[in-house]
């Protein structure tokens, strides 16, 4: 039998449901793997062994009673450590939040996966308060990329990306404000979906920048991502940013192809600032999806700048009491950006929010003619841990804020994006490509990703050194 850690979530759940494997066996195997391999990537900040074994035993008991254990029966998962997990302290990557009491209940998303039969193995490393693209966390250590341990795992959901790519769990939960699902999906070579703003509840998670915060799953196949995403849907009256939308499942239409879909490649801003390898990967995806045209969002740079200003101001405002009284307890890599954000005048912020609205209308015009837009997720493959500057085609920019150059304009207006992986993009390391849709069209993105997977263009096996 294939080793459990390389199996897909859907295959594991099938074997558990038909009693070929017990959820307890799967959980013990995953815990042993985390014990032996996590130190290399530093993805987990806490392993919830007692809970995992109890959750797994409960799944096995359900099956023994003849009850439905759920679509994710026995599937190991972990969550970025800004999601509440009952009985653990929700750190949000910070030292400051260590003072919190342990969570009294699961975050909405964690509870949804638990109800679907998945088994929670713990909490995952991240940039402090989700402010970063590299997960070089000074409090809990840098997260390392399973494809090359000297390189970043991306951020801010770096632990979520590395844990899946290293085969420590089958699926994980992350958040995305400016690219924090899409960047780790890209550099770790896995699938990730940032749904439409307001689609999934953020209840029970530590907010970073509420007007831009999204949550979403990571996985190593489109089917796994679809089951994981479908399981997260549902109404949460406690998240007022959640839109009143019906549950719109994607699994049942996953294999229906892309007939009639109009696909275009985003150029202009989205072909500048990036390496040739990244652009080549976007070309590969575009050709496989039969791209009919190259199109532009002319104000993408302004939108990216607006997202940057909004994030700076909102993130600082959320943390202002601690910035006033204990600034030295913040992450040194983002503390000064946070303090600068506290200085942003209201006029700049409101101007940025108006730019955002104008850009939304511009994107809506484009989606009258197109269903899916294609663009790279990151300007480069994973960079070395500790690198401060990015130099591409003669342009030198500060690395940490620059990793979101292609993702920020899109999340700025809340569009759904599924990031698909191209392995060996530079001959060795993976990179992700964004499939971008109009609001509420996640099912189209899943169908396109499935076509790419079926064609062998996109795949996300466990990273070679971790197979």
């Amino acid at each position, binding site marked *: 039998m294939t080793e459990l850690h390389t199996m897909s979530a859907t295959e594991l759940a099938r074997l558990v449901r038909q009693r070929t494997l017990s959820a307890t066996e799967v959980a013990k195997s995953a815990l042993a793997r985390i014990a032996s391999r996590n130190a290399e990537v530093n993805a987990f900040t806490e392993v919830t062994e007692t809970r995992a074994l109890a959750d797994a035993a409960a799944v096995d008991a359900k099956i023994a009673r003849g009850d439905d254990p759920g679509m994710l029966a026995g599937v190991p998962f972990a969550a970025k450590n800004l999601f509440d997990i009952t009985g653990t302290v929700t750190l949000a990557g910070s030292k400051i939040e260590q003072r919190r009491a342990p969570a009294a209940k699961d975050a909405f998303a964690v509870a949804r996966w638990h109800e679907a039969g998945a088994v929670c193995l713990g909490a995952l490393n991240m940039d402090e308060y989700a402010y970063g693209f590299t997960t070089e966390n000074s409090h809990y250590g840098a997260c390392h990329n399973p494809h090359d341990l000297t390189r970043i795992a991306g951020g801010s959901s770096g632990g979520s990306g590395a844990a899946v790519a290293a085969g420590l769990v089958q699926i994980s939960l992350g958040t995305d404000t400016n690219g924090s699902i899409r960047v780790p999906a890209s550099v770790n070579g896995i699938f990730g979906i940032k749904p439409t703003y307001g689609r999934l509840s953020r209840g029970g998670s530590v907010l970073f920048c509420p007007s831009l915060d999204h949550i979403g799953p990571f996985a190593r196949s489109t089917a796994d991502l679809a089951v994981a995403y479908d399981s997260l849907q549902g109404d949460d009256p406690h998240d007022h940013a959640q839109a009143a939308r019906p549950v719109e499942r994607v699994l049942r239409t996953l294999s229906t192809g892309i007939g009639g879909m109009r696909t275009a490649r985003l150029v202009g801003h989205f072909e500048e600032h990036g390496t040739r390898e990244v652009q080549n990967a976007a070309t590969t995806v575009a050709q496989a999806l039969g791209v009919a045209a190259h199109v532009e969002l002319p104000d993408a740079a302004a939108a990216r700048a*607006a997202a940057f*200003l909004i994030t700076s101001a909102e993130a600082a405002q959320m943390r202002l009491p601690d910035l006033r009284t204990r600034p030295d307890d913040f992450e040194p890599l983002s503390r000064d950006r946070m303090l*600068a954000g506290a*200085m942003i005048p209201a*006029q700049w912020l409101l*101007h940025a929010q*108006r730019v*955002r609205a*104008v850009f939304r209308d511009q994107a809506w015009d484009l989606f009258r003619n197109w269903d899916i837009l294609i663009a790279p997720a990151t300007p480069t493959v994973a960079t070395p841990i500790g690198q401060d500057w990015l130099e591409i085609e003669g342009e030198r920019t500060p690395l940490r*804020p620059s990793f979101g150059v292609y993702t920020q304009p899109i999340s700025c207006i809340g569009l759904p994006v599924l990031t698909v992986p191209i392995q060996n993009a530079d001959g060795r390391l993976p990179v992700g490509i964004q499939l971008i849709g109009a609001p509420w069209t996640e099912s189209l993105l899943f169908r396109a990703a499935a076509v790419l997977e079926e064609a062998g263009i996109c795949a996300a096996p466990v990273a070679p050194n971790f197979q």
Partner: protein
Amino acid sequence: MIDPAKFDPVAYVTAAAPAMGLSFTPERVQIVAEALALVVRIGAPALSYKLPPDSEPAPVFIP
């Protein structure tokens, strides 16, 4: 909206910090001013964007 050539981040941070309830050492003023200068640099394409006069800010409060 802002002329980066005329904007003095050190003077601005020094003046604005008390209004935000923040207290900085002279060394930290310099560091925060540098970070704010980067915010201005990256934010420039938005800050210089000519808005249609009737455009609304993006977030809409839903009671």
